[in-house]
């Protein structure tokens, strides 16, 4: 027999009754002056609200009555003998000690790290390669229109130069060993400077300035292979999925008080996202390295154009923090390492 003194509310008024709760192994009884609750079955007709810190323990009855008590030990005995709230016992055990809290924190960091560096990229890759290629085209179409409206003017390069690059491009596309369809466009853009980028559909856009900056066709070849690698590995779509995953993960982490943390959360999100895009850049660079090796070309050509592009925009040199392309020197170092290992 377990006896727990406490306060009882009848579910009709705010009046509090001093009572004693009794449990005989099957039934619960609430006994007090002016009040008596008919015997009721513990498992069927009431809920023992799980322990939470040192707050008062509460039993809610199905028909709206409430019993509350400071006798935490009594309620724990009740839970134990009736076999209720077992999982919550573990949770409140975790919450009750600093030791377990530290373990949880370490576990939390490990899981978040695992998700960010392995889980999310893996899932994103899986989804990205399952999507059919016409989805890619549809996605890219909107982007094409917006880019042409906002950033681009028609190219002013002479046709001869363009045709030579196009020829090189179609040869590369044919030898790319993938069923991806590629296309190439030239555009002029002040805001983007010397630049090239790829859309998921396989469209590669090159700015006039980039072509003008290059001193050798092999430099352009490097850039083209780099962009084609982005398309083949579906980097564009993967980064969209990955970034969505990161936003979800971080909002789960700090979702508790949205008003302050929403702006604090945007910084870690940015850091993780720029880390992802660096990985993609590195992968595309490695594709260039492999291509140049197989053709017996000197990787210097690709390195030179990278350096020249970087010099075109001196302001971005120092802002390693948020740059989408990793610092050029690091990229070149990595590429050289990669080639010497591959040899």
């Amino acid at each position, binding site marked *: 027999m377990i006896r727990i003194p406490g306060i009882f*509310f009848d*579910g*009709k*008024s*705010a*009046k*509090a009754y001093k009572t004693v709760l009794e449990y005989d192994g099957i039934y619960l009884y609430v006994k007090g002056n002016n009040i008596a609750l008919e015997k009721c079955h513990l498992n069927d007709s009431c809920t023992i*609200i799980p322990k*939470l*810190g*040192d*707050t*008062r323990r*509460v039993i809610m009855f199905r028909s*709206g009555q*409430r019993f509350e008590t400071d006798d935490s030990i009594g309620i724990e005995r009740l839970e134990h003998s009736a076999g209720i709230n077992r999982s919550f016992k573990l*949770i409140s055990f975790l*919450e*009750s*000690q*600093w030791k*377990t*809290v530290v373990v*949880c*924190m370490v*576990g*939390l960091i490990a*899981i*978040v790290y695992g998700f960010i560096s392995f889980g999310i990229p893996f899932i994103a890759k899986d989804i990205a390669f399952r999507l059919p290629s016409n989805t890619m085209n*549809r*996605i890219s179409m*909107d*982007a094409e229109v*917006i880019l042409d409206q906002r950033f681009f003017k028609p190219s002013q390069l002479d046709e001869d130069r363009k045709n030579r690059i196009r020829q090189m491009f179609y040869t590369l596309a044919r030898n790319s060993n993938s069923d991806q369809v590629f296309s190439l466009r030239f555009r002029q853009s*002040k805001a983007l400077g010397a630049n090239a980028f790829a859309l998921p559909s396989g469209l590669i856009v090159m700015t006039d300035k980039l072509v003008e900056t290059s001193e050798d066709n092999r430099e352009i070849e490097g850039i083209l292979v780099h962009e084609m690698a982005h398309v083949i590995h579906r980097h564009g779509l993967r980064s*969209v*999925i990955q*970034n*969505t995953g990161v*936003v*979800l*993960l971080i909002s*789960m*982490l*700090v*979702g*508790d*008080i*949205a*008003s*302050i*943390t*929403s*702006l*604090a959360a945007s910084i870690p999100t940015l850091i993780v996202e720029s880390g992802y895009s660096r990985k993609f850049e590195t992968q595309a660079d490695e594709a260039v390295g492999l291509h140049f090796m197989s053709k017996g070309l000197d990787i210097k050509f690709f390195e030179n154009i990278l350096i020249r592009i970087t010099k075109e*925009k*001196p*302001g*971005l040199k120092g*802002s390693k923090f948020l740059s989408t392309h990793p610092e050029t020197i690091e990229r070149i170092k990595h590429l050289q390492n990669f080639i010497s290992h591959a040899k």
Partner: protein
Amino acid sequence: MQDIESKGQRASGVGTRKRYKKMIKRHPVNFSGKAGEYFRIWIVNVFLTILTGGIYSAWAKVRTRRYFYAHTSIDGFAFDYLANPINILKGHLIVGVFFIAYMLSGRLYPEWGFVFVVLFYLFFPFLMYKSIKFYTHNSAYRNIRFHFDGTLWESYQLFLVVPILIPLTLGFFFPYWEHLKKRWFFENSAFGTTFNEFNGKAGFFYKTYFFSFLQIMLLMALLGGVVALSMYTSGLLEQIQSPELGEMFQKGFIVFFGLYAVMIISVTMIQQYVFARVTNYCWLQSQIGPVKVNSQLQFRKLFWIRFTNILAIILSIGLLIPWAKVRRARYILSCMSVKSTGNLDDFTTGVAADVTAVGDAASDFFDFDFGL
């Protein structure tokens, strides 16, 4: 304050004539939450939420709310939050799916973002209504649940129809809208079967927003001056004329962060100013049967707490979030007290209605603030 009243209470048996006056009781609102204890609960909440891929978030939410409620007591009795986590989980799932769809489509098909915004606005009054219903229904004191009696139609009028008037009147309608929202909430709220009587007037809201408008103007002028000055001295003005985007970006970065910081400070200031004034006023104009709530929030203290909280959270990479929450709750509740002229035992429960949690989850995700 409390001492005088309790002395009076002790003497109440002496003369019958004085009895009515002596029935007045004043109770402070006690908050006994502790930052360390809540920190442990919070860490376990976050850990289990991530571990279960978000499923535990519903339980985490109930435990968090319960922790703050159960540590808030009046006259020896604590509040309680009685929501069933399963209901909240359903809500979280629905809202989560919507959120992922929104995120992906926003990045893949930008023009679809507009469709979601329209959908969201159409859905918003429904969420608001559900959210308030769920929240009040699951909040209880002395085993009496709170209750909200507003209707879905009123919610649509208030959050979809009326806001159209704000741009039409160049914003002059805005304080009135704020008044309508508060009135809707306070007038339709009940403790058990006892409804709250609310006598708030629109004039007060006009005064409050007029002063915050002045504050904004003053801050903007100040800000504009500072930015112009810093741009002039750092030579940024010349940079803008040249097309070099990179260099402008680098220098602009510092100015941008400075601007961002000042903006957060001014927004926080105005938020806290409005919050303090409006909360105090709404309780002053409320009467729940024999009970009156007294709120004496001070804008300066609220602002200081909020500002230092933000700093502490950023500097501790979020680890001080629990401390900040407990600290703010402790201050707000320490400013409140309750005065009753009748017997608190006489409150009775209302009819229990089935309330789903979709709205509640949405309010958690998107942080709708219906301000209490």
